[in-house]
């Protein structure tokens, strides 16, 4: 210990420095989230958090599993490429438990005019009607069957 006779103040300083390092190390380990930095400068767990969100729309494949008759009917019609849930709304819950949730029938006129009301911006080939002029207050489905809209 003789060599360090006059170095006590330095040792004390070194001790404080080590203590500071320890405090920093422990604080960092405590404050930085568990998966931070494993994939990049972010919390890798956040990806799984986003993925864990439940789905609302079941997807066309799920609809076709049970409702093949409607899919076949529509296969010949102008609406064939439109997904079921485009008009019927998000029905993942119905797809999971069909008995527990019966989907409501969409109200025709406000739904149809979203696409078929004449407005500037639509291609001239796209089928549109002047909704003030066309069929009065009559529901669209009186004449047009939504799964095969052409009037034969």
């Amino acid at each position, binding site marked *: 210990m003789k060599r360090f006779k006059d170095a006590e103040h330095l040792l004390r300083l070194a001790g404080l420095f080590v203590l500071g390092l320890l405090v920093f190390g*422990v604080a960092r380990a405590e404050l930085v989230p568990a998966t931070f930095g494993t994939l990049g400068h972010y919390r890798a767990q956040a990806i799984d958090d986003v993925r864990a969100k439940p789905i*609302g729309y079941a997807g066309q494949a799920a609809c076709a599993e049970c409702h093949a008759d409607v899919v076949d009917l529509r296969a010949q019609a102008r609406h064939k490429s439109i997904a079921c849930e485009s008009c019927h709304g998000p029905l993942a819950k119905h797809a999971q438990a069909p008995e527990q949730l019966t989907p409501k029938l969409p109200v025709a006129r406000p739904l149809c005019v979203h*696409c078929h009301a004449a407005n500037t911006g639509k291609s001239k080939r796209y089928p549109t009607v002047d909704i003030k002029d066309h069929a009065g207050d009559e529901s669209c489905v009186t004449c047009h069957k939504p799964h095969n809209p052409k009037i034969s």
Partner: protein
Amino acid sequence: MDSTRRDFLILGTKMFVMTSVAAAAFENVLAGTPEAAATYSTADHWWAMVIDIEKCVGSGHCVRACKLENNVVDEPMYFRTWVERYHVNPLDMDHPIVDSPNGGIDGFPETYPDATTTGKTFFVPKMCNHCADSPCTQVCPVGATFRTNDGVVLIDKDYCLGCRYCVQACPYGCRYIDPRTNTADKCTLCYHRITKGLQPACCEVCPTGARQIADLKNPKDPVHEFLRTHQIQILKPQMATGAKVYYNGLDGSVR
């Protein structure tokens, strides 16, 4: 006196180290074993979106579906995706008139307010461009927003401070602060759906097929044929963001 202080320091340090080690070990016990890896691998995908302006009729299905699927706040009118209608007067092509009533959620008024017979009008759906070099992730001070290895820009809602840097940084105006959580929010490209093999909600409901999700790493994806046979364009290429929403038929007047 001197030895007492040293003893105190040594004892204190020992206790400090031991308790922190014990706490760290206990934390690992609490966390349990990590979950088994899912079948989805981020290395096998590179996600993008293709929007065909010639097919869009401004029905607003995508806007409504996005709000329902992702529980986007109703009031005020914030959007993860919205539709703009451009009206270009041939005598003043540099100054298009743009309207987007409530983001196009209920479609568009029947005719354009100043519709002329000579102008052209078209719809431009907009959303997060999931940029490969996104400005929004670069400015985040805490790493709460990031680009995944499969090319989707996501937000860590638990880690976001709500500082709004990213909202200002996005050149496409795709971010907003969710007033319910006071954190940043935006399109996730329906990451919870595409990683399960489903389409994003907006693509699922689009009645004309104007929106298509694209996996550029999948050689069987029809997007490759589409990119070969169409002239595609991105928004604000001069920003060098590496935007991955590819527009077909995008007019030069679109901002």
